[in-house]
């Protein structure tokens, strides 16, 4: 996805003299071609995330379409006040692009895990929040959003899915509609595991790349079903909750640091976000809420 980000902005920069890249000493070699072509619009500024955001806001104040990019937790956890005040409160437009989503850097331990960004950034007035899941989404949504008047967050991962989705900003994708009593809702790269888990389960499946604004219209269509939110971060559950009075369940992160190493797949497996774990969670909800099961439960309880 990072390579797609590079390809897209390099192509855009050829037509847009206002496009500027600000890096926090990450992805620098990847941007070598951009650097050589547009040296005045490329800044590997340093390992100083707060200032990267402030400078991006300052560039935005003067009409530049700037992208600031580095590792997710450092830019969004450390830089939250700069994002809130220098970008959002000042209403200076800009684009924040991170890599290192959730457990992408599993082997580096919990200092490099990222799971608060989507939920926290959603709360900032004016902010657009995107958890991109595929290369096609990276290309389409950067193009559609990067030079609007907003502050836009794009979360990239090294583990994209390759599933065809609706590429329109603010729109979800209905991947499966079985008229089932359970609807699985998910976002971002974990979709690959969710699809595998739910392939032959009688559940509906809805996917989002845009967490703010969330596609309320699509969610409303499944109001009368039990909604299982499967997500490897915080933020999607809260976004879906904007639609009032839904019956929701969350299958995702524990309230604990996931202090193991290995790969993203190892950690997903340990916390039940591998296909088998997701399937178990979905099946359990199905078992509780299929009409036949409800009847049996009433009989068994003696009521």
């Amino acid at each position, binding site marked *: 996805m990072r390579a797609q980000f590079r390809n897209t902005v390099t192509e855009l920069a050829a037509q847009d003299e206002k496009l*500027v890249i600000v890096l926090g000493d990450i992805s620098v070699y990847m941007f070598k071609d951009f650097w050589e072509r547009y040296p*005045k*619009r490329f*800044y590997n*500024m*340093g390992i*100083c995330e*707060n*200032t990267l*955001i*402030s*400078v*991006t*806001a*300052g*560039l*935005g*104040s*003067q*009409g*530049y379409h700037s992208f600031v990019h580095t590792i997710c937790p450092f830019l969004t956890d450390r830089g939250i*006040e*700069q994002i809130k*005040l*220098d970008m959002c*409160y*000042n*209403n*200076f437009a800009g684009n924040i692009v991170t890599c290192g989503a959730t457990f992408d850097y599993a082997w580096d331990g919990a200092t490099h895990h990222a799971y608060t960004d989507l939920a926290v950034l959603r709360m900032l007035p004016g902010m657009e929040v995107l958890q991109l899941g595929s290369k096609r989404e990276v290309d389409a949504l950067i193009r559609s959003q990067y030079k609007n008047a907003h502050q836009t967050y794009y979360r990239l991962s090294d583990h994209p899915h390759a599933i065809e989705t609706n590429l329109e900003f603010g729109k979800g994708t209905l991947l499966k509609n079985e008229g089932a009593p359970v609807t699985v809702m998910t976002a971002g790269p974990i979709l690959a595991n969710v699809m595998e888990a739910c392939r032959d389960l009688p559940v509906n499946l809805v996917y989002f790349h845009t967490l703010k604004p969330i596609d309320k219209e699509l969610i409303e269509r499944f109001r009368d079903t039990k909604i299982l939110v499967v997500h490897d971060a915080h933020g999607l559950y809260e976004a879906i909750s904007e639609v009032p009075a839904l019956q929701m369940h969350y299958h995702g992160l524990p309230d604990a640091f996931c202090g193991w190493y290995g790969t993203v797949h190892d950690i997903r497996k340990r916390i039940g976000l591998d296909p088998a774990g997701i399937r178990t969670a979905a099946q359990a909800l199905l078992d509780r809420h299929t009409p036949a099961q409800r009847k049996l439960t009433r009989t068994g309880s003696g009521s």
Partner: protein
Amino acid sequence: MHPLCQKIRSEILRVSHKSGHGHIPTSFSIVEMLCAVYAVMRHDPKNPDMPDRDIFVLSKGHASLGFYCALAAQGYFDFDEVYSFGAFDSKFGCHPDRTKVPGVEASTGSLGHGIGLAVGIALAAKIADTSRQVYTLIGDGESNEGTVWEAIMVAANLKLDNLIVLYDNNNSQSRCLPIPNPGERFAAFGCQTVEVDGHNLEAIKKALVKPADRPRVVICNTVKGYGCATLSNNVYEWHRRAPKPEELDKLLGELHAGAI
């Protein structure tokens, strides 16, 4: 004291008295710095969005009352408007909002933010190949924040010779985390530094236009509450306090007598 600076200080006192708000001593310490900046920068109070204007960012946003009165003195709006300071519907909050007040380029309040914004604005001016200058006023207390030094490192590395930092050296952190020899520190971070009497208008103006090939930092040695002995001798008591009627008369008397 220059008559314009005396007028601004008297308005600060009156607005604070009327509104019940304001950080008076810190506003007093920057009056000459503000007047010097607006004397040398390209700006048009009747056209605050003039495309080729220079830009000033007040990073220590709690000195907003001094800032508003200085802008009023320049003609951005009438002094009368500032008397709504801190009121519910006022444009003039206790920290400045760029979307409400003509001449305010950045909304500030949390310390250590304005200087980073100013670095980005100065970089934008460089990318655009303009001669626009970017001024920012930071506090010595504010410079306890690490972001000040991050921003300075970045500005020096980018050789932003269009960035001028005014450092209000009013010893606000003498009881906490003082920064001795600030000029040496900014020089060590790659800036051209000059130290002046922060209440000498002409000296500040001269320092602001001194040519440089890197970011400039003008260390302005100031006195919190300059102009009123009651304030400068009791800075902690008066840090954020509005004068009562009898106190206003006393402070105005001291100001007009030229007492320090």
